[in-house]
């Protein structure tokens, strides 16, 4: 059949066209004759082929499920055999559950090992005592909102994913059923709140997370782990930008797939829901593994980092060491606050907040 392709023999154009015409003729006419011929042979042999045989082959086909008619209304009730179920089962039991356990446990182990041998990054020049505001209050509230919701969802999700292996041997079936049921309800209740958080993060931080000057250099030096000297970075370094986009893209994916699964009465069928569970599981496991790294770098892994998300202010020396481009701009703009002033400011806010709840001062007058 290969020689019928005209581009293989450009000289013998006429010959090839004739062959092609013959080929097309065969293609068009043959299938119409073939079953007839078979049926004729069967009749001649005194037998009528059972169309059921072909039918069942079609029903059991491993690719597309064949839908039939049924009086019973319900999701996919016309599908006699759902061919995707077995694939989904294999994925979940043979890949997702073990890989999730290995990845999350592995990342946790690596971080602990890393910390034991290398310790975190210290401030090279100690504290300066002067501060720069890094995150406004609304950003910090948003961050801790997403953090709380995500950690709750991660815990409840992991209970549902791995509890059968990890928790049933400890608690038994009855107690674990109660835990899992509460986890499922909680997961469903708090899931949509995570979507709001991701959208909020996107709105507040997207402008600072486009690739910029120094990002490539930062990545090539792996943020200073390779090549000794700390690479130059702006407000966010390349690592933080990658984490941001991971949270946005994967966060939106697990939110949308989660909604598809949470409200199963908008006509979504089993293939869509099984696919959603695959994406939801893979995405969530990725984010949890990333979260461990994020938490480590924000706390024990890097001295004086956490302050940016608690008080909102960072030490000038911290800013110079980790985000030199940003620190330069801030210092040029005169955004540096002396430690004394910051303390007064915070105390002022503290007393201001406390005033209404202190009738004692009025009694003293």
């Amino acid at each position: 059949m290969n020689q019928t392709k005209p581009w293989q023999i450009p000289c013998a154009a006429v010959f090839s066209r004739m062959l092609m015409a013959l080929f097309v003729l065969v293609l068009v006419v043959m299938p119409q004759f073939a079953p007839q011929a078979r049926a004729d042979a069967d009749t001649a042999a005194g037998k009528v082929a059972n169309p059921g045989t072909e039918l069942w082959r079609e029903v059991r086909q491993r690719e597309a499920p064949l839908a039939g008619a049924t009086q019973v209304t319900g999701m996919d009730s016309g599908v006699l055999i759902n061919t995707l179920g077995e694939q989904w089962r294999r994925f979940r039991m043979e890949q997702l559950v073990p890989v999730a356990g290995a990845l999350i446990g592995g990342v946790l182990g690596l971080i602990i090992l890393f910390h034991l041998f290398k310790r975190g990054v210290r401030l090279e020049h100690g504290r300066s005592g002067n501060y720069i505001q890094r995150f406004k209050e609304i950003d910090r509230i948003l961050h801790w909102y997403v953090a709380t919701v995500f950690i709750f969802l991660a815990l409840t999700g992991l209970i549902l994913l791995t509890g059968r292996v990890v928790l049933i041997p400890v608690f038994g079936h009855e107690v674990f059923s109660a835990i899992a049921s509460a986890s499922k309800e909680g997961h469903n209740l708090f899931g949509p709140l995570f979507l709001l958080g991701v959208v909020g993060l996107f709105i507040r931080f997207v402008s600072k997370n486009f690739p910029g000057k120094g990002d490539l250099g930062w990545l090539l030096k792996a943020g200073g782990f390779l090549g000794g000297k700390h690479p130059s970075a702006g407000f966010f370094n390349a690592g933080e930008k990658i984490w941001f986009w991971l949270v946005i893209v994967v966060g939106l994916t697990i939110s949308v797939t989660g909604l598809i699964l949470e409200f199963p009465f908008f006509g979504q069928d089993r293939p869509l829901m099984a696919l959603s569970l695959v994406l939801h599981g893979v995405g969530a496991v990725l984010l949890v593994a990333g979260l461990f790294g994020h938490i480590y770098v924000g706390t024990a892994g890097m001295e004086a980092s956490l302050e940016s998300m608690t008080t909102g202010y960072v030490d000038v020396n911290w800013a110079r060491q980790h985000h030199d481009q940003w620190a330069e701009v801030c210092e040029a703009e005169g955004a540096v606050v002396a430690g004394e002033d910051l303390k007064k400011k915070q105390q002022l806010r503290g007393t201001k907040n406390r005033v209404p709840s202190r009738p004692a001062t009025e009694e003293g007058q």
Partner: protein
Amino acid sequence: MARMKFLCDAERCIECNACVTACKNENEVPWGVNRRRVVTINDGSPGERSLSVACMHCSDAPCAAVCPVDCFYTTDDGVVLHDKDICIGCGYCFYACPFGAPQFPTTGAFGSRGKMDKCTFCAGGPEEDNSAEEHRKYGGNRLAEGKLPLCAEMCATRALLAGDGDTVSDIFRERVTWRGSSGFTWGWGVAYSKPGLRNSRDVEGKAAGKD
């Protein structure tokens, strides 16, 4: 020990849905839930075939494999049952089951899934046999009374067979052998082994063994 099995003979099933109704009545299943359904392939076309399908009580049941709370168990008769006190209504069994057997009443929050319900082979659940509690959660337990599932017992054309795998396959083998030995391999004339029902030259359509 018996190994319980369902078998539906597509050459005999006439899509009367009596099995569906019988099951619903016997087990008093919740509104919107049908443990059994009849699916017709190529409905209305020559060569259409109907099959009654419910839980097939798999040896290596996918529902039991994926259940996050491990609520499934297999009885000594090879019947796959589940414990509704353990089930959390997550729906994973519904994704994994090839036959669409697991059903969910919409009793959860926001009308989401309640506890899963499926065919029990008329064998109830983990509670005491034929107790009120068992009946409330799982419906009848005919097996404990020495009876077979009502869907198969009710089947007018004996298309749906239920019982020990060996017995069921003996019956079906007999039918297939008979069908193979006749001139025609399918059609009403060969669905039944009674000579009176065999093909007649005057019969048209399906009965004649022509499409």
